[in-house]
């Protein structure tokens, strides 16, 4: 891998906004991104109590649509059949504007990325897809390579992608888009304000209620961000708090809590494989994944509650009776729960909540136990 310090780092359209708000900029996923503004802990707590604004323009929003028959009856079935070649979720069943989490799989059933796939409201034969920033180039290349017979891909990562998260997000955003209040979790609206086109979805990665907005990279989009940040209920939030918020919410970070060596069953994401797809068994790596579903995986992603005050970071070995049995894949301190928290993989026979384990932090065994996820109660608007 190239040394990030010598790579040319890209800037999102909000770079100057971050700097003007005191953002401490660091390299992340090929971009210069704000890791924090006033501090990870206050930003984290603000998001859980009010509303936090996140720049996620480094991620990979795109549209996948039919080359022929776009907008015609049966269009959704055709585009679903295409994307379902690469993911194990039932996309065909989605209603207009409905989205769901899924995973891109390789031929061995390993996870290439996690992604949100939404049926475009108002037009049949088009999907709105958001993939992770660090792997977007390979994800898009895969989709173009495997689906070019029926579908075309339009990248939208030159636009603004922001998330507004927290219990006051609805009240704040409804002042700009009354439609926001009508959406429920994982539902998306396509809005047109004059010449401007906006994708508004009720989703996010903090465990809080909130929204993600794909906005044009122009005066209108930047003006909306400025207006949101001028609201007393809203503060800009950096990557540091984004990470602690998603960890408390028990959500996986690609490249850490899952990667191409893990299948969805061991990553505890079996729920993204709906019953109909299990029966069809027609997704990449179906043989391995269905076997893991039937027999249970060798290892399992679990929540980990350290029982001492020392945080256990990514890469910390997990021991039982002095024997290595797994590894921490995300770990730190949860500001809302006010204690260290972690997740990682353990041998499947040790995956039951309450199982006692040791975390080898700097050579010392620290007591911990396997626990259920999430660490905080999620507050999605169902």
């Amino acid at each position, binding site marked *: 891998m190239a040394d990030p310090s010598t790579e040319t780092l890209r800037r999102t359209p909000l770079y100057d906004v971050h700097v003007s708000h005191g953002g401490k900029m660091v390299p992340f996923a090929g971009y210069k991104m704000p*890791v*924090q503004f006033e*501090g*990870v*802990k206050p930003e*984290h707590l603000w998001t859980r109590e009010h509303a936090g604004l996140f720049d996620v323009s480094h991620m990979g929003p795109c549209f996948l649509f039919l080359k022929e028959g776009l907008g015609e009856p049966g269009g959704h079935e055709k585009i679903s059949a295409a994307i379902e070649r690469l993911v194990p979720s039932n996309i065909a069943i989605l209603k207009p504007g409905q989205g769901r989490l899924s995973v891109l799989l390789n031929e061995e059933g390993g996870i290439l990325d996690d992604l949100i796939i939404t049926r475009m409201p108002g037009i049949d034969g088009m999907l709105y897809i958001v993939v992770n920033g660090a792997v977007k180039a390979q994800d898009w290349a895969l989709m173009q390579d495997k689906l070019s017979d029926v579908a075309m891909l339009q990248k939208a990562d030159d636009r603004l992608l922001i998330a507004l998260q927290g219990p006051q997000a609805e009240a704040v955003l409804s002042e700009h888009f009354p439609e926001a209040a009508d959406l429920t979790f994982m539902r998306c609206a396509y809005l047109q304000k004059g010449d401007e086109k906006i994708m508004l979805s009720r989703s996010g990665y903090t465990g809080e209620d909130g929204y993600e907005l794909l906005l044009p990279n122009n005066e209108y989009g930047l003006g909306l961000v400025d207006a949101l940040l001028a609201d007393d209920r809203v503060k800009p939030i950096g990557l*540091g708090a984004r*990470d*602690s918020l998603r960890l408390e919410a028990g959500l996986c970070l690609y490249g850490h809590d899952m990667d191409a060596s893990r299948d969805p069953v061991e990553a505890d994401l079996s729920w993204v494989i709906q019953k109909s797809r299990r029966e069809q068994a027609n997704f990449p790596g179906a043989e391995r994944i269905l076997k893991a579903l039937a027999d249970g995986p060798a290892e399992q992603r679990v929540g980990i509650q350290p029982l001492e*005050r*020392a*945080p256990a*970071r990514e890469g910390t070995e997990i021991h039982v009776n002095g024997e290595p049995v797994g590894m921490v894949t995300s770990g*730190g*301190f949860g*500001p809302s729960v006010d204690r*260290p928290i972690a997740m990682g993989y353990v041998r499947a026979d040790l995956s039951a909540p309450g199982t006692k384990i040791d975390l080898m932090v*700097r050579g010392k065994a620290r007591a911990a136990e396997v626990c259920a996820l999430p660490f905080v109660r999620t507050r999605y608007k169902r």
Partner: protein
Amino acid sequence: MTTYFTEDHEWISVDGDTGTVGITKYAAEQLGDVVFVEVPEAGASFGKGDDMAVVESVKAASDVYAPVGGEITEGNGDLADAPETVNEDPEGKGWFCKIKLADKGELDGLMDAAAYKAYCEGL
């Protein structure tokens, strides 16, 4: 009693042949909210520049280096239950440990308060 500073943002306040060690206000501000501190135990020995302690913020763990070599005479046990003391009073109650200096000559390479202030302003 004289206080010296390192480029890695430790301070050592020397009285006779014993020094009290901690991290500077600048370092504490850069770290943000401290959630855990691992201080060395009495009897442990370190060379100048060795990893001596660990301070963890919400985001990351950072090593703290021995500003001089010597033997630890006391670790600040209060930090185990109150790591936030490092943010509240980094150059006072938030001290990490006391060390018996092996060689007072090692202090010569460290900065005084004025030099350290200028050093931080240049960062």
